[in-house]
């Protein structure tokens, strides 16, 4: 699978993640400690995978959107919508949980289609088109829950964010399923090529017979469903739908994960493996800061340093420059 490496671009976030984990190994107590309890693994690394699942899902969806040259700012709010729909249905009706999740995902799918139509048919710039739902989506979620935090105890729904499957958090299974599905669709069919062509040169793609409007609408729908699954996880994890706060600023985390992962914001070639690595990098950073008890006021600074470093490594120009400087030194 060439996608795994994507011409070396996945390498840099992986190096970043590796260095960070090495740092954690030496400086964070109990970081690599694992423990089996109730037939499942526990440990900081497992927490990172579990808590990082939301951004990983958002990043997978966002990768395809960004590959078409777009961006989806509404994912954080769509998380709130999915969580609110599920929480309201599960507390106020007797519908079985799979149906509840289906309705929640269906609702965000519709909203995703709205994004897609605005971008592909109406021709509104993606950043503006998705900004509409970023603002309005949360309003819808708040209306559904009357602006309150809706709590639930339904075991099946709680399982999504807290349960274990094969000894690992169930959230990981969800991430792998969505990622695997997306990989199959984009790498085993022509769809991936369509997406890259649309992102690279839309006019050329259209003349080649690529159904670019359909492709564009499709990626926004997919991104919305990813956000919906992330929203279900977020709600399930705290056994409550916190419409006003859930997923706040997470759209930016997702975009960051994609960019760090080596997919250019200009569209074209994309790598989902890079985005997932990027998402794990963010989550590991966050957990490291908290574990080391870095003062909340300065947490953004070390985060920024790591982000800048990885982004610089991604830049061909920067690497060439460094190579020249090092080469000159070697000669002298």
């Amino acid at each position, binding site marked *: 699978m060439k996608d795994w490496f994507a011409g070396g671009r996945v390498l840099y976030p992986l190096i970043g993640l590796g260095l960070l984990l090495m740092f954690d190994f030496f400086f964070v107590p109990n970081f690599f400690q694992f423990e089996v309890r109730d037939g499942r693994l526990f440990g*900081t690394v497992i*927490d990172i995978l579990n808590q990082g699942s939301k951004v990983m899902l958002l990043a997978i969806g966002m990768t395809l959107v960004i590959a078409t040259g777009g961006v989806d700012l509404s994912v954080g709010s769509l998380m709130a919508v999915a969580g609110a729909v599920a929480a309201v249905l599960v507390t106020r009706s007797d519908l079985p949980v799979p149906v509840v999740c289906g309705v929640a995902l269906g609702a965000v799918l519709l909203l995703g289609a709205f994004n897609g139509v605005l971008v592909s048919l109406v021709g509104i710039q993606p950043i503006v088109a998705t900004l509409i739902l970023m603002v309005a989506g949360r*309003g819808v979620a708040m209306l559904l829950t009357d602006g309150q935090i809706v709590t639930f105890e339904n075991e099946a729904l709680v399982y999504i964010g807290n349960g274990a499957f094969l000894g690992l958090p169930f959230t990981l299974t969800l991430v792998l399923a969505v990622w695997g599905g997306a990989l199959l669709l984009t790498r085993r069919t022509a769809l991936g090529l369509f997406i890259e062509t649309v992102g690279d040169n839309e006019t050329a793609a259209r003349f080649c017979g690529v159904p670019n409007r359909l492709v564009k609408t499709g990626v926004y729908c997919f991104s919305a469903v990813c956000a919906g699954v992330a929203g279900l996880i977020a709600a399930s994890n*705290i*056994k409550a739908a*916190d419409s006003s706060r859930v997923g706040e600023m997470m759209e930016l985390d997702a975009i960051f994960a994609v960019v760090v992962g080596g997919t250019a914001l200009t569209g074209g070639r994309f790598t989902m493996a890079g985005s997932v690595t990027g998402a794990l990098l963010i989550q590991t950073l966050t957990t490291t800061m*908290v574990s080391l008890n870095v003062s*909340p*006021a300065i947490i953004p600074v070390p985060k920024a340093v790591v982000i800048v470093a990885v982004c610089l490594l991604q830049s061909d120009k920067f690497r060439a420059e460094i190579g020249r400087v090092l080469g000159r030194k070697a000669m002298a």
Partner: protein
Amino acid sequence: MKSNRLMNQIGARLGLFTATTAAILWAGCGQQSKPVTGGPSASGGAPASTPGATKAGYTVGFAQVGAESSWRTAETDSIKGEAEQRGVTLKFSDAQGKQENQIKAVRGFIAQGVDAIILAPVVETGWEPVLKEAKQAGIPVVLVDRGLKVADESLYATLIASDFVAEGRMAAEWLVKKTGGKASIIELQGTPGAAPAIDRKKGFEEGLKEHVDMKIIASQSGDFRRSVGKEVAEALLKVHGTKVTAVYAHNDDMALGAIQAIEEAGRKPGVDVIVVSIDGVKGAFEAMVKGTLNCSVECSPLLGPLAFDAVEKALAGVELPKKTIVDDQVYDTTTAKDVIDSRKY
């Protein structure tokens, strides 16, 4: 305060929709306020069954922020209820989180010639002109739950609000008593920079100063969010393991998240790890009855009685202190059961 944040959220999000409607409504009828009492006292006076009714026959305008959280709805109900009990005619206005609506409402109250105004300001600044108009009209203004910044403090009679520092101190004092002065504490701070987060941290530290064995082993921001509270507690419990004997959260939501993390770490919240938080929302009381949350310091929205006491004193010409501190109560597992049914928010 949580409600403040929530207000901003809705102000920003829902406000987009309501703003246009509201603007049209306001333009159409500048004084969109409706009396909510059982009627003016002239219609038979205050019911005899309300012993709290003192003198009736005056009118008060209440400019509320909005109805964005259960905390604020409880505050509105408290003020409406108290007005009814005292036989006061109350004119109520909901600003839907927008200052311009609130300023119009206050102007409306002045034009209608109310005797006093109760104001819960949306923001701190920009109140000078309208407060000057009220002062010229001889109408005292009582502020509730949030302060405002004016150069001339005589523009308002008094501010009735909770003292966040005191809340933090009360939480610390309760924890000292509960743990016998020895604990390793994880502190979950609010959003960095937010006034309640700063003050509740400060108060808590003040309360622990005398007790050298009360140690805060980690202090991280949970952003006032349940999900972040859980995530942070989860990570810190892994690092410090069984050393952690107490969790102090700046609001109930983060504490409720931390409780889940403690349970998942295989320890018993409320027993192995003592949990104390601030706000006193309904979910916190439910957790206290269950025994998973040990203590919550209330940040009371029931400001009605204090507000009308202040109004009556101001009307009688009594000079009031510029700040009246709400007497917040501490509730714990022993007292929560008795009061949970009477909780209004």
